[in-house]
């Protein structure tokens, strides 16, 4: 414990910029030497993905090799570079502190994206995992608006996602692709990537309209009843799509053009986080919390509870629709079976695992459930014992999820750290969280 504290205080002077620089160096090492040198000398068949978990679980003999790889490629370079460059990165961070916050955040994001792109570029499998993880982040953050901030238990997210996926795919297929269902493209396909956001937003808007079907009956009901209504909504959407032959029915709809490369999904994810963060910290967001805590009291305090609930529902549904549209274009195939109770279980697991009422929590939940699911892949059936067990333990020891009731504080996150902070073993100062 003493050692951990020392370790933490040693690295407490490293600003965000320093960590990014360290990661960049690590990624460059992997990029140039990962395959030919490092993994070769460690006796690994290839650069290990997901930090070697896949290979470790499959062939236990490879554990030292994979761990050594992580140490050489990631841990040592990141720590040394981050620490050694504090003299350079801290003044830089101090300069950026003087810039407008939005600009500073933008610079950091661009840097972060560069690192991510380099890291994922080594292997297309990483790209796919990151894409699907980011889509999960959008889904989790958006369901948190309803289930976390508003405190209702909504189960209709897969339904919203399906609406978004089908509407945006239909649009892109009609407009930009030659396919069997809708025939030749109406517009030149080269316009596709530019007009794709419109198709996505149309999908989101359709989902938001659909959400009224849940929101309006929910004025009369509370708690469990809302869960049932929203569950019913999900099944209605699924059966409706199954029986619509125009859009493929149960056979599904395939051949969506590839409009969702990594950077597009990254931009949408960041937009989603930013907008939802602003939404939940706005007056409407505060109103949401009061509705959650006591509806009658907030009504008497002149909050229009109906309007608040409806806005939150439509807002959450809109982003679920966007996530659905991106999902459809990543897989280039959708069928109604994808948007059923299994998907719901997955989304709920992510949001309750990560934490209610917190965007950071949602991100943590989405990333950890996705990465865990991928990393434990070789265990096959046992994966479905281990992940639920982890969930149960989290629910027992942290009933509101890993990180709950905390907001992102960008300013605090990106600031320069000249001095060692004495209370650095405290979570909030070390991590990116603020009050």
């Amino acid at each position: 414990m003493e050692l951990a504290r020392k370790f933490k205080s040693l690295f407490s002077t490293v600003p965000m910029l320093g960590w990014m620089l360290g990661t960049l160096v690590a990624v460059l090492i992997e990029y140039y030497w990962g395959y030919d040198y490092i993994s070769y000398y460690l006796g690994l068949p290839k650069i290990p993905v997901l930090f070697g978990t896949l290979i470790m679980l499959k062939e236990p003999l490879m554990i030292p090799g994979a761990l050594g790889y992580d140490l050489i490629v990631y841990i040592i370079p990141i720590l040394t570079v981050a620490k050694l460059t504090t003299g350079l990165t801290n003044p830089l961070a101090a300069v950026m502190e003087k810039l407008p916050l939005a600009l500073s955040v933008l610079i950091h994001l661009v840097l972060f994206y560069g690192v991510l792109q380099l890291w994922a570029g080594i292997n297309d499998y990483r790209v796919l995992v990151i894409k699907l993880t980011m889509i999960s982040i959008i889904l989790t953050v958006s369901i948190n608006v309803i289930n976390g901030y508003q405190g209702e238990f909504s189960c209709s997210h897969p339904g919203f996602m399906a609406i978004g996926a089908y509407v945006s795919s239909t649009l892109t297929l009609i407009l930009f692709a030659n396919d069997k269902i809708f025939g030749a493209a109406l517009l030149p396909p080269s316009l596709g990537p530019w007009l794709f956001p419109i198709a996505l937003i149309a999908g989101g808007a359709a989902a938001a309209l659909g959400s009224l079907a849940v929101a309006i009956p929910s004025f009369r009901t509370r708690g469990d009843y809302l869960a049932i209504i929203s569950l019913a909504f999900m099944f209605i959407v699924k059966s409706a799509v199954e029986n619509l032959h125009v859009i493929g029915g149960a056979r599904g709809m395939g051949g969506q053009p590839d409009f969702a490369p990594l950077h597009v999904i990254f931009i949408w994810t960041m937009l989603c986080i930013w907008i939802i963060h602003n939404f939940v910290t706005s007056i409407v967001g505060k109103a949401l919390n009061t509705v959650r805590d006591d509806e009658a009291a907030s009504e008497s305090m002149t909050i229009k509870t109906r309007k608040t609930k409806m806005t939150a529902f439509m807002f959450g549904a809109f982003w679920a629709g966007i996530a659905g549209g991106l999902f459809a274009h990543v897989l280039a195939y959708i069928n109604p079976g994808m948007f059923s109770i299994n998907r719901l279980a997955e989304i709920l697991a992510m949001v309750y695992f990560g934490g209610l009422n917190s965007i950071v929590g949602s991100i943590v939940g989405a990333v950890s459930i996705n990465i865990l699911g991928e990393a434990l892949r070789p265990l096959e059936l046992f994966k479905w014992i281990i992940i639920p067990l982890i969930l149960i333990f989290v629910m027992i020891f942290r009933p509101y999820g890993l990180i709950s009731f905390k907001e992102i504080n960008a300013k605090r996150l990106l600031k320069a750290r000249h001095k060692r902070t004495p209370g650095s073993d405290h979570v909030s100062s070390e991590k990116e969280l603020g009050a």
Partner: protein
Amino acid sequence: MRKIALLTVFAICLAMILTPTAFSARKTIIKIGINAPLTGDIPKVGEGSKYAAMLWLEDIEKAGGLEVGGKKYEVELVIEDNESKAESAVKANTKMITQDDVLAIVGPQSSKQAVPSGEVANKYNTVMISPWSTNENTTLDRPYVFRGCFLDPFQGPVVANFITDEFAFTKAAVLYDVANDYSKGLAEVFKAAWEKKHGAGSVVAYESFTTKDTDFSSQLTTIVKSGAQVLFSPQYYNEVPLIVKQAKNLGWKGPIVGSDSWGSAELVSLCGKDCNGLFFSSHYAAAGAKGATKAFIDRYEKTYGYIPDDVAALTWDALKLAEQAIQNTGKITGKVAKDRTAVRDALAQIKDFAGITGNMTFTQEGDPIKCAVIVKINDEGQFEFYKSSCP
């Protein structure tokens, strides 16, 4: 502390720079990917594919590796679980192609996973053979995707012809799962084929239900009342016993005919005596098999304790096809991209391949031209060869 760390990093960097770039090339291993539903809705299917693949690997290992152009290469299987989910199958395919450098992929089995996975395989120019997917979109416009079985548009008319020839019935009923693309597609094809033969309205009842329904009494009552002489139900093996039992209880007397999805060892153990005497179309029949088919069945039963399903037999054939194609390329260069294209070209040219599920020649689309088998569940509850029906 810092000095030591620095020194280590420096030493490692130095070692890397000083070593000649031209390492002795890593050993060329032929890797074959298996994309199977080991967990999820149809785990038995995944198990069958996995076991068949393991038997195949055993053969290769016994021979000391796969011989290509006079050289023996070590073979490795990469078995991935697709959880019976589309996105998982896509992930598995991407992983096997970009991370594990597989030369060819066998699987996924059901169309739901095979259609999107085929897109991935085709994008990365890697041969994929789906042993069991009957949806035409799996191979359509995808030069790198092949399959080991016949298609739904072929199977539907085969069943319709068989019933007409065998029983001389004119009125049929259909019970299918509306949420299952396979079942729904086949039901539609059968209906079209039957009505073409016997005139419009000859399908007197066309009833549907949704996946995971367990009570079919209202649909079955309609069917019994409709005066149909035969019931066609293209369901997966886990739903068939429920349908058959409930139909009998409601007074259904006629035969019930199914499709290749019935062909699982589980069917008889779930259904018991009720299923005896029923027919279904399939890829092969275990009871009364001869030659290589029998050898495979015996070996599988001896190793794993039960008679293999059609999925296992088809996976075996798909692996044998891949093996043949790899051998036909003449040489392995060690450059995966080049080898994959060579395997694809060799596979497309295979003619009259003698598989244990019948002879195969690929069409332009990568679909095999092969015969269907009508299987009867005999009184011992075995799947018995009854009739063969060729295109």
